């Protein structure tokens, strides 16, 4: 009985817990790992941690907007792929003779948002569920990237471009600064722009939102395009980090991204959550992975632990009082 009440979250205490749960989990994790491994709380390790969190952060923050709508975006691996491949072929490299330097970055981000736009348009006009639309666009993206490269790997030689990932300001890696700015932009969109309010409204109750006069279709399309732009930036950073353009560079990112968003406390059903929740979620996932490596946990066990993490995190932070039906 008590358990049911607690998980249904009818008490005020439960509501407060739900808001702070992600941060509490993060704090507890950090404490636990530092007990087992004194190397965890060193500056160099924390910087390395933030560096590996940068790309997942950018991807997850983009996905948050889509998930707040109540939709899901499975195309991020494909968009990251296409963006990384295109940017690697546009800066100085060993396959194409093109070298337009850092202008390739906004181009690749724009390409990402274009693919996101296709997601949104297909989803809205054809009225296909976002699950299927984005899955299709994602596969098509990876396919296009593979076809363009024909199995070849493009090696980037433009050092200015590599500096996006390898450079340091105040001894903090460039990627971390870029991720921080991206979080800032996403927070501004969510809190200060109408778009942010509309996204929450649509995720909470689309019918009511429509009656109130919110432009539902336009908002959906814009959100998918926005997410695409974030993924495009993620792809650019991936190419800079790895020094290569490769059709499979996005592989494995989808699971980590969705995990991070959900662990952070954003409901997959939409309407509840925020960019800051996702930031906490990404940090939890990355800290856990970092901690497991420090403790020497074998890679296959790490995957199992991540799975348990999702289930625990969702169970703790989901507001089940508002869910009549759990599908």
């Amino acid at each position, binding site marked *: 009985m008590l358990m049911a009440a607690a998980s249904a979250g009818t008490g005020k205490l439960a509501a407060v817990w739900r808001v702070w749960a992600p941060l509490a989990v993060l704090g507890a994790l950090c404490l636990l790992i530092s007990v087992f491994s004194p*190397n965890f709380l060193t500056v160099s390790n924390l910087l*390395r941690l933030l560096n590996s969190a940068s790309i997942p952060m950018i991807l997850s923050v983009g996905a948050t907007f889509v998930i707040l709508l109540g939709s899901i975006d499975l195309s991020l691996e494909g968009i990251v792929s296409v963006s990384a491949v295109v940017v690697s072929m546009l800066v100085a490299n060993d396959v194409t003779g093109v070298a337009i330097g850092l202008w390739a970055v906004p181009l690749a981000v724009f390409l990402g948002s274009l693919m996101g736009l296709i997601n949104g348009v297909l989803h809205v006009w054809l009225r296909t569920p976002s699950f299927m639309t984005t899955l299709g666009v994602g596969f098509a993206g990876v396919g296009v990237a593979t076809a363009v490269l024909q*199995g070849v790997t493009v090696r980037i030689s433009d050092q200015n471009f590599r500096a996006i*990932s390898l450079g340091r300001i105040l001894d903090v890696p460039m990627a971390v600064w870029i991720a921080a700015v991206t979080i800032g932009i996403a927070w501004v969109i969510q809190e200060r722009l109408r778009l942010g309010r509309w996204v929450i409204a649509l995720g909470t109750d689309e019918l009511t939102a429509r009656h109130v006069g919110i432009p539902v279709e336009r908002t959906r399309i814009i959100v998918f395009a926005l997410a695409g732009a974030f993924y495009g930036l993620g792809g650019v950073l991936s190419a800079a980090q790895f020094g290569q353009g490769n059709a*499979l560079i996005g*592989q494995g990112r989808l699971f980590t991204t969705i995990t991070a968003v959900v662990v952070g406390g954003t409901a997959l059903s939409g309407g509840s959550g925020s960019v800051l929740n996702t930031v906490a979620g990404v940090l939890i996932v990355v800290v856990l992975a970092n901690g497991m490596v420090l403790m020497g946990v074998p890679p296959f066990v790490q995957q199992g632990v991540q799975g348990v993490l999702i289930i625990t995190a969702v169970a703790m932070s989901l507001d089940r009082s508002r869910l009549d039906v759990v599908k």
Partner: protein
Amino acid sequence: MTKNNQPATDGVSRRLLIKGAMGVAGAAAFGMPFIKRSSAAETTWTLANSLRSVANPYHATFAKGGENFAKSIGAKYEVLITEGNSEKGISDIKALLQRTGGKLIVNVDPNDSPDARVIVEECKKAGAYVVTQWNKPADLHPWDFNPNYVAHMSFDGVPNAKKIAEVLFKGMGGAGGVVALGGILSNVPAIERKAGLDMAIKDSGGKVELLDFQPADWDEKKAFDITQAWITRFGDKVKGVFAANDGMGMGALEALRQNNLAGKVPVVGLDGIAEAVKAIEAGEFAGTVAWDPLWTGGMGLAIPYAVATGKLDIAKEGKEHREFYGTGIIVTKDSVADFKNNPSKIDFNDLFGKATGQIQYRG
């Protein structure tokens, strides 16, 4: 036509039209390669190299070697890519055997050892000629499949890996912790190179410690991720990185670069790819072993071609020409200039000139 029939017939005819159009489009898509093929000029024999992926620089050069030989005799040449998938590798070869009616000469680097047996048996059935590289089961021999299974080529991983590991230890100052990246665990070269590394570590008399060994499956990205994790876990204790091939070595190098360690922690690999040679010049790689994939890619077709055209009777050749090693060249900072200025000359008429001895099976 009754009222009930009419909508049904209309629907069927529209649907039928769409289905028909899709069918034609599908057939056209499948038929295109065939159409192109029949209009190109071709000799009796088709040549093909089968390899894992052209994203791997060693295999990209291997494919080029085959292309060079095919051009020299004006034959049709195909590159079959397995993408690390054994089933795909085997079915691609079977499909090509069908398409060419058995008039195929294939130079295959099998994704994994068991694949070699299936491929050899399929080629023998079809009357095609096959050479295998690197991976095959120990009990599969070319002389049991005369004349179709022409030869097996490889390079002895054990002494070469031992030598290059010693180059690494020297670059580390003779002592310290080493991390090692392995190839696909069941691949023959992966087993041989690990054995060579282990021997070198034993010979160091405890001065060099193996901190960890992880298979990265010959894949650059996997090597990158694993090395990042190692730097997190071992930090300054990592004094050198041993990679069973240059591709993985490049991935490890990028991970070192992310942590400002490129050039400070030496890396060694095997294969002798162009990027590794550049890295040796830049002081980021301590050394590599060059196998000359242009030679294996080309000779692996030249030898069976000589058999197919009757110039060579393979059944009369000794076992040292049926299963043989090539020579690996150790490239380090001292020898890299020499290596680059003397590119290997490949004479397609000198079939066994670079063979250095029969393959040994170590228990």
